[in-house]
């Protein structure tokens, strides 16, 4: 298991972003950095059947399970989406399935990036979250 629980990590991220205050430019620069530093998904896992189709940016998700809980790797062709993915992976990886299913991920709202999880957003992130939860459900 992760040394920190979901809400603890969320809190950490909120503090991290609070640092930028209202300066959305820095916030997005940070997000872009996170996106760039996201560990790559194994090429073998970046296949069409793992694709989550947003209208515009595509998202690949791979989910595994080990002693530490769920192991997610993911990728996107858009860097901002990738930054969001990095946050989600950080929060949900190595957590146990039950916690993942229950997670409401309110940090996304609190760091001012809620729009990216909007159901009508063209980036496939919401579908990714749903897919992450579905994978966790399989491991219950």
């Amino acid at each position, binding site marked *: 298991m992760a040394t920190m629980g979901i809400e603890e990590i969320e809190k950490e991220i909120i503090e991290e972003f609070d640092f930028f205050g209202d300066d959305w430019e820095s916030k997005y620069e940070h997000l872009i950095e996170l996106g760039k530093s996201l560990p790559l998904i194994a090429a073998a896992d970046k296949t069409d059947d793992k694709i989550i*189709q947003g*209208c*515009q940016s595509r998202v690949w998700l791979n989910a595994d399970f080990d002693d530490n809980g769920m192991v997610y790797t993911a990728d996107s062709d858009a860097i901002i989406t990738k930054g969001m993915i990095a946050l989600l992976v950080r929060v949900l990886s190595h957590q146990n399935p039950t916690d993942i299913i229950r997670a409401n991920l309110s940090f996304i709202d609190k760091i001012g990036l809620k*729009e990216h999880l*909007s*159901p*009508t*957003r*063209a980036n496939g992130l919401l579908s990714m979250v749903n897919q992450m939860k579905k994978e966790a459900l399989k491991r219950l």
Partner: protein
Amino acid sequence: MELSSIRQNFPILGQKINACDLVYLDNAATTQKPIAVINALSDYYSHNNANIHRGVHTLSRRATDLFEQARKTTAQHFGVANEQQIVFTSGTTDSINMVAQGLSKLYLKPGDEIILSMLEHHSNILPWQLWAEENGGHLKVIPLLADHSLDYSAFEKLISPKTKLIAITHVSNTLGLVTDVEKIKSVANRHNIPWLLDGAQSAPHMPVNLSVLNPDFFVCSAHKMYGPTGCGILYLNERWLSELPIAKTGGGTIKTVSFEKTEYVEGALRFEPGTPNIADVIAFAEALKYMDAIGMQQIFKHESELVQYAQTLMKEIPEIDMYGIHDHKAGVISFNVKNQHPFDVGTLLDKYGIALRTGHHCTQPLMKHLGVQGTIRISFAIYNSKQEIDYFIEKLKKVIKMLS
């Protein structure tokens, strides 16, 4: 809500026609719009207008959210859990055509039969007739009893192994008679025949819970429900949501397109090619909220009282022939003045500020059955009052005198 406060929600009702107060009794043709609906249009265009789906900018996201929220509001209003079963169209006629065109692609075969009724509006006849003519199909017509209601036992006898669809009006736009949907449904289910319910005249007047009625298709028009023109819905059950072949296609309905092959999306968007009527769909949701705030049960009760009240007074006018007198009606009364042309009566009543409809009401087969060229029709909405009916009756008597 008080009636007087309801009237104040409708700017048009304050109008004078020919120096008389407007008495609008043409609601079955189209209803007037509350200020909430009118404002929804201005608000949308003044603050949120953008093309929807696929947009990354703020306005586009806002417009998309409003549009998809409208779909949810509509689904809720009709008791539908999966909002993808609500497809926005340009109106009842458009919806019926989409079903007819779609079904005729794979499902309907030469020699097949469709059952309609003698009460149908042309919009629920012609699309099926076109199919029948082009594909060697047949239309069977449920006849009427002496009181002009559907002959349900004759209906059951029309069923044959070739019956592939029952398409029936929920409320007759000419007579206001309400179809016994449970009877239609039980026969349809027993014989496993899909059925379409034309709700153009029921949805404005009574609670309609589609998860209870559970038709295969349900259609209605926003403009008859206090909403804008150019907007309507096609409800499909889960089966047809995935199985109905698309007849109309274009941008927005696809996953991938090449000149060789196209892959379509699933759900409502599959049936909404091109830029939808965004503003009117959003305004329509306001109309539904407006009706729900009053309560559909309340609306039905109010309008039923008006029908009873008017029918009683009109029965006492000897020069009048009324059609389809009934206790359970949805806001509509059709009649004629003996030996007078409906056009003359309508023209003179208009001079007194009374708006009503005369003619065949797009139900020529029913006119033929009644043995008339046309009728005079008054139809009610939530803002109509007994005082208006009194005024109407007074002027009607006067006009009868003028003409005779």
